[in-house]
């Protein structure tokens, strides 16, 4: 990209394989028993669909600014809009659990607390008058910032966006409001049963690791503006920020603007804090939290894998067959369709987590069918390891993954964001080129093997939230039963 080699801008091109063309015309292979309809469908001839995986150096430019900031750009002149996403290398994982609230507040207050040259109120007035949206947050494994503006307001939008990232003011009065908002959300954390179960399940599995922790008011109430400034200073440096820019702009002009907006921001050589590892252990048993509800909320699961585990493709397909493929999955067919016991039932297996993610099957059913629903779920989970999955089931799952792949790149914003996340999360640059091959190469023995290895019945944690006196049977035949209290939010009234 020689034309982009302008003063102060280094063009860096990743070494990626040559652009490949994929043919997406996998005609589904069906086996008996067939419906009359499926025979009619088989007669429809599908035209071949030709498309390319977007590549850095072709559609998408990847540029490193002088200060080390990496920028992904994709022009799209379809609508007069610009969209910018930033990923900042920070997150709750770099801090102890007691700082979760601080990290999260810093994320919100970047946008909410004004900049050194603009009070929060003038900032809000200016942005909203121009219909520019900017939002910021810091989550578990990254910080993020988002900007959307009309193309004609690109310059103002980027200027403010860069000010917010670089010169946030963390206004004290707004901080007090944000803290009281936080306090209110903690007070309300037991309002929704789904939220309670997700939170307490993760907490039980991860123990004191930050993955299972949640913010406590006692750690937040004394936070001051100085704490936010210090956290910002620790993590926000241009060489730890990536930008994905898509929309109605010309690349050289956009690069000049970015260069100007972030000019003079020095790179940092400080090391990031080390991240404590998740200790891999299972906590089998049944854990019951009492709450007066008309349904029992059920979650069954355990620690899963890290994202660099080569079994991730086999696991993705195995979970699709078990409970990830919505209606076609075994859990839904059995618990919902056959028995009418639940509206929402299924399973998820996180294969994209930096450290061990979660496998969890879930279901909500009326109190009187709790024991029955759990029995059915456990049987379906156990069956996965018995080699009972058919060729057809696996083929169906593979087809869904292969044919859905085109949607990974359905819009310009999505394309740059996907490529940015790939690099942020240290995936190999040829991840997408090899993706289909990786899915295709999963065979039936792999499904059995990963089920045995990763969702073994004896290592599962079962957690239930509900009114146990209305259950159809006691839950102790599923394992050792432990009653857990519903933790009080810990906000004084």
């Amino acid at each position, binding site marked *: 990209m020689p034309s982009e080699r302008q003063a102060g801008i280094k063009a860096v091109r990743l070494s990626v394989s040559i652009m490949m063309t994929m043919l997406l015309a996998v005609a589904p292979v069906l086996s008996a028993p067939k419906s009359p309809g*499926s025979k009619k*469908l088989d007669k429809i001839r599908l035209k071949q669909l030709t498309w390319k995986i977007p590549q850095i150096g072709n559609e998408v430019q990847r540029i490193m600014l002088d200060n080390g900031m990496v920028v992904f750009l994709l022009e799209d002149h379809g609508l007069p809009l610009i969209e910018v996403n930033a990923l900042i290398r920070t997150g709750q994982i770099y801090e102890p659990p007691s700082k979760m609230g601080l990290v999260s507040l810093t994320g919100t207050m970047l946008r909410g607390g004004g900049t050194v040259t603009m009070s929060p109120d003038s900032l*809000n*007035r200016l942005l909203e*008058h121009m219909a520019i949206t900017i939002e910021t947050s810091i989550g578990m494994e990254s910080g993020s910032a988002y900007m959307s503006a009309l193309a*004609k307001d690109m310059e103002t939008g980027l200027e403010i966006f860069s000010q917010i990232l670089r010169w946030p003011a963390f206004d004290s009065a707004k901080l007090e409001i944000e803290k009281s908002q936080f306090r209110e959300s903690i*007070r309300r954390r037991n309002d*929704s049963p789904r939220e309670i179960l997700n939170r307490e399940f993760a907490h039980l599995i991860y123990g004191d690791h930050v993955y299972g922790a949640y913010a406590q008011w006692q750690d937040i109430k004394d936070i001051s503006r100085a704490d936010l400034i210090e956290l910002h200073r620790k993590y926000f440096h241009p060489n730890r920020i990536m930008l994905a820019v898509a929309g109605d702009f010309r690349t050289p002009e956009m690069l000049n603007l970015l260069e100007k907006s972030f000019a003079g921001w020095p790179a940092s050589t400080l090391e990031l804090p080390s991240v404590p590892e998740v200790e891999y252990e299972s906590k089998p048993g049944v854990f019951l939290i009492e709450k007066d509800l008309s349904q029992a909320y059920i979650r069954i699961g355990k620690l899963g894998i890290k994202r660099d585990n080569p079994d991730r493709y086999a696991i993705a397909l195995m979970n699709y067959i078990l409970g990830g493929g919505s209606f076609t999955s075994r859990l839904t067919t059995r618990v919902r369709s056959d028995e009418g016991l639940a*509206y929402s039932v299924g399973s998820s297996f996180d294969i994209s987590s930096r450290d061990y993610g979660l496998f969890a099957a879930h279901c909500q059913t009326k109190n009187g069918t709790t024991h029955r629903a759990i029995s059915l779920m456990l049987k379906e989970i156990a069956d996965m390891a018995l080699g009972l999955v058919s060729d057809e089931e696996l083929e169906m799952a593979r087809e869904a993954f292969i044919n859905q792949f085109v949607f990974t790149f359905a819009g310009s914003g999505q394309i740059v964001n996907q490529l940015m996340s790939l690099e942020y999360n240290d995936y190999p640059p040829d991840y997408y080129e090899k993706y289909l091959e990786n899915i295709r190469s999963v065979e039936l023995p792999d499904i059995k093997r990963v089920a045995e290895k990763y969702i073994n019945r004896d290592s599962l944690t079962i957690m239930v939230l509900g009114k146990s006196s209305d259950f159809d049977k006691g839950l102790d035949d599923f394992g050792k039963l432990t009653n857990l209290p519903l933790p009080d939010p810990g906000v004084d009234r």
Partner: protein
Amino acid sequence: MNSTAFLILIWVFLSGSLLPAAELPLAVRDFTLDNGMKFIVVERPMAPVVSLVIGYKVGSVDEKPGITGMAHLCEHMMFKGTRIFGTIDHAKELPYMRRIDSLAEIYHAELAELRHRFDDTGKPRLDSLKNEIHRIQIEQSKLIVKDELWETYLRHGGTNLNASTSNDATRYFVSLPANRLEIWAMMESDRMTGMVSREYYSERDVVHEERRLSLDNEPFGRLEEQLYAAAFTAAGYGWPVVGWASDLETMTRHDLEQFYKKYYCPDNAICAIVGDVDFEEVMRIARKYFGPIPPAGKPQPPTTMEPAQQGERRVEVRFDSEPLLAIGYHTVAANHQDQPVLDVIAAILTRGRTSRLHKRLVENDKTASWVRADAPFSRYPDLFTIWLGPKFPASTADNEKAIYQELESLKTIPVSELELERIRNQLEADFLRDLRSNLGLAFRLVNYEMLTGSWKNIAANLDKRKGVTAEDIMRVAAKYFTPENRTVASIVKKAESQSGAVRKASGD
């Protein structure tokens, strides 16, 4: 085939910038088949994908007491298959379904009897009937190809696959690789006429679980249900889309069949197709698959209208959660001239950090953690609503008072030109942002066609909203935001409800 396909560009005039038409390549074209089914098509070759939405103009407002929740249950049943999908041999299923129907008839008669005697001694008998129905259904399942429609879409790469039912409409949607258009047309045209309500009774139980999940155990669901039930005493917006629990125990398969026959027909359907497609090919495929379906005659709209409210209504829900507040005012339907004004008022009140209620309640008074106002966009006159989460120790009553003050000031003090300009800029930007996704655009096209009579109102409505004046706002606020037109619902934390926390606010 009514060959009135024509081409309209959606124009957006952006203040301060001149945009050549070529930069807004949004050619929307439509055509109507002889049987009355309308198709709206946008060719958009950015990526080799297409989003497909079919809307049927039927929602819970078309139901009657006794079958509340039927539109939504019907949406669920549409995934159970047809005469040719979801079964190996439909003819062989019929004896099973007849046996289930006759047992269900006994079940419903006994349930009705027990309900009228206020007696639950018959429960064991009911349970055994239910088990017998279940047993026959399991026998029938040898002939059933489970969830075949869903599975077929997924294996063809379907994403965003689902359906939704609202008060006004039912929509079926999916995004597919662009070469799958014909697969979609075949399956959708088939289930427009050939739906078979197999596994009806277990699906009715599934919907009952859905009701428990989203209404019984979630404070928001409960609050919304009770607000609308109190505000509407006659018209069909008063019952929840998912239906009342007692109806979910008694609606029969026969009720479903009647409902389906009446509303699932080409002259009651609108389709939007946005993506990498060719208009001529869409016409060819539409004619081939949907063309032969006979029209059924547009169904009669509901006749019961809501009488004017004559005094404030207040409803309290005791629930195991922190308090919430909802306020509703009877207003207008989507087509009414005041609708765009209400849209602008909602934006003035709660859109963004500079909006009036956010500024006042969240930032200045610090009595709420969030607040949201919604203008209705419905087939029939519906509620303008304000939702709020009070921040401890402030009560719902403290917040009510402040909200009424802000609504009063809309009636008496003209909104400044600066504030109106901000709203106009936001409306324009939103309009463009809403065009970005294929599926989002397809939804808008279908919704406008169903609720206002034409998708062309998308652009017309933007102009109307941009033309709203300070006087319009004063007039409309004074007309609708009156105490006698108001319904107030609140969630009161169970343990504290004895003290009667929905106190009447003193500010009006």
